[in-house]
């Protein structure tokens, strides 16, 4: 397929792999965090780890929008669909995220809640137009990539003077999460999680640009290379990070130049700024309360805010005790370190959120990589 196969060329990947092996110094290791779930998925799906030398290690980051959604937020969404009997429109990935009382959106739907999977915010708006007698709530989740479309439908809803459409806003911010990880005691003081550099987000960066990462590179002396989600992008970014570390540089470099500029998408950013404002604090699964890490709807658009209209009160709910999602999202543990991984926690019956989305570290390892834990004989 044109413009896709070019970025999945196996021979070229092995060449870059040999380059990385040649340039990585044998007297040190390289711990590189891929922030985004998109990268985590690509690394597992294409077997990128097989192409890397042993001392170049990938650490999964928290950039999977479904994974970081805390139980309390899913509970609120279920409450909207059940107690307030709204039509709740949601991206398919959130359907199976475990909530309190053994529920999930999918199970709530089976019990009669009107929950509909949509591919975009615009679909939710259309459902509201088609059902004027019903309250329709769009369960908005995601990082900076999905935020502009949400802002757009809110503005459209205002222009259309819709009175039955609101947004339950759960949009979160990438830079705040990276800062939080770098500030965490595990990374800063204890040295439990060595983090030498970051593979920066692909799609998020098309919106916010490469500029916001300059602060981490400078303040925390960690190189960042923004990379696309194709396997060759990831390989090339790893090589660029190894080179920066070898040369003692900590800069923001952009591998994904075909889509990302330094300043990003100005129109999208302006739109987001018009509709949303910072929340003082927001709970992330795995990271806990992270200051200024999420968005809420501005007063000017209060009519389209589901939290205001339905008086949604947030209640924090602790994760299952056996679940290691928190540590996995912070890069402290790997999926296979978790006792419930692949036993009671599987993609069919996820205990933790990392097992839900295909971008989650556990689901990616379970789906594509777990055969590496056992030996298979050829015929």
């Amino acid at each position: 397929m044109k413009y896709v196969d070019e970025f999945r060329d196996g021979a070229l990947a092995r060449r870059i792999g040999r380059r990385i092996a040649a340039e990585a110094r044998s007297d040190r290791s390289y711990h590189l965090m891929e922030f985004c779930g998109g990268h985590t998925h690509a690394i597992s799906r294409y077997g990128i780890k097989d192409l890397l030398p042993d001392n170049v290690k990938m650490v999964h980051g928290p950039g999977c929008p479904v994974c970081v959604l805390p139980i309390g937020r899913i509970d609120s969404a279920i409450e909207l669909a059940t107690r307030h009997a709204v039509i709740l429109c949601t991206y398919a990935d959130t359907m199976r995220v475990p909530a309190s009382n053994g529920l999930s959106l999918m199970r709530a739907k089976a019990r009669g809640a009107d929950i509909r999977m949509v591919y975009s915010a615009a679909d939710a708006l259309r459902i509201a137009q088609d059902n004027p007698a019903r309250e329709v709530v769009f369960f908005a989740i995601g990082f900076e990539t999905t935020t502009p479309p949400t802002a757009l439908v809110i503005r459209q809803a205002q222009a259309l003077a819709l009175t039955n459409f609101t947004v339950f806003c759960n949009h979160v911010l990438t830079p705040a999460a990276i800062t939080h990880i770098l500030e965490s005691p595990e990374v800063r003081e204890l040295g439990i999680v060595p983090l030498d550099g970051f593979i920066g987000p692909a799609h998020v960066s098309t919106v916010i640009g490469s500029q916001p990462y300059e602060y981490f590179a400078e303040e925390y002396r960690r190189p960042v290379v923004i990379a696309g989600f194709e396997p060759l992008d990831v390989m090339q970014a790893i090589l660029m990070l190894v080179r920066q570390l070898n040369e003692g540089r900590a800069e923001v470099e952009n591998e994904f130049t075909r889509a990302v500029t330094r300043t990003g998408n100005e129109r999208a950013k302006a739109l987001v700024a018009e509709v949303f404002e910072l929340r003082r604090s927001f709970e992330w699964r795995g990271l806990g309360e992270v200051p200024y890490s999420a968005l809420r709807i501005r007063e000017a658009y209060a009519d389209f805010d589901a939290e205001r209209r339905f008086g949604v009160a947030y209640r924090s709910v602790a994760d299952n005790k056996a679940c290691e999602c928190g540590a996995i999202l912070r890069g402290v543990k790997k999926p296979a370190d978790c006792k419930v991984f692949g036993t009671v926690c599987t993609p069919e019956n996820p205990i933790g959120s990392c097992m839900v989305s295909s971008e989650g570290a556990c689901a990616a390892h379970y789906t594509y990589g777990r055969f590496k834990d056992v030996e298979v004989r050829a015929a």
Partner: protein
Amino acid sequence: MSKIRSDYVRPVDFKHGRVDMSHGGGGRAMAQLIEELFVRAFANEWLAQGNDNAAFSVPAGRMVMATDSHVVSPLEFPGGDIGALAVHGTINDVAMAGARPLYLAASFILEEGLPLATLKRIVDSMARAAHEASVPVVTGDTKVVEQGKGDGIFITTTGIGVVPPGVEISGDRARPGDAILVSGTIGDHGVAIMSLRENLTFETTIRSDTAALHGLVAQMVQAVPTIRCLRDPTRGGLGTTLNEFARQSGVGMLIREASIPVRPEVSAACEFLGLDPLYVANEGKLIAVCPPEDAERLLAAMRTHPHGADSAIIGEIVADPHCFVQMETSFGGRRVVDWLTGEQLPRIC
């Protein structure tokens, strides 16, 4: 004495009429619908007898029986409709035992309000499919449910067939070393359906591959009677069917991504919908497992049939107590092709 008048019965209005509760009530309206629509369309001696069953003689040998319910939405899609699908689906299930399908039974659950024009189009398409396949629909049933309790029309078909002597095909017979073949491009049906879904319209030239495969199977069984497993990868796609074989036979598999035929349009649609063509449904493809020494002969036999023109050998069976289906990716790595989690798509076949 007055003259005996022949009853005047107003013909069923197939132009503007709609299914109503009386069409399933067991009364005159139902009898009329059966006569004017089903008996006329399927036109065969068994239905003409007007019994609630069909009696026929069968050749000696092992019989095969299969049943399949069809609940596809939308009812009509590029390349087919629920009627053709209902015929092909059951014929294929019977054929996958290596059998020659003989007869079909069809049961219709109609939703009150369904336009009779739609019903007629679907039944005509079904009759055409049965006629082309030379497998008659010899008995059937019709029920009507209230509006909101169905989805236009649900069709269940049951088929019987007979297996030629010496042929023994079952999902538990794969052995390490065996070759795995697929009869053509995968994912066409699922993507064709998806292109029409309510909240997902996109333009595509892809058509459903819905087809009856018993002709292809007959040719394959004749060329290579030692075929071990056959199955049509419908819901869940190629990935799911391979996992079923692996579990039934207690073996692993190693397939090569580069040898699996996928149309570029399907691959592109899957790319932007975030789907994997390995798990997208097919309605006119089959997967075969045979001893390695027969693989080339089987491939040649498949390729001479129109429904198998794009056939390919995609991998082999390996010994693996964990029954993993593994794939060598075009990128050069290896990964598991796991069971599908949840569902990629609701109701597509």
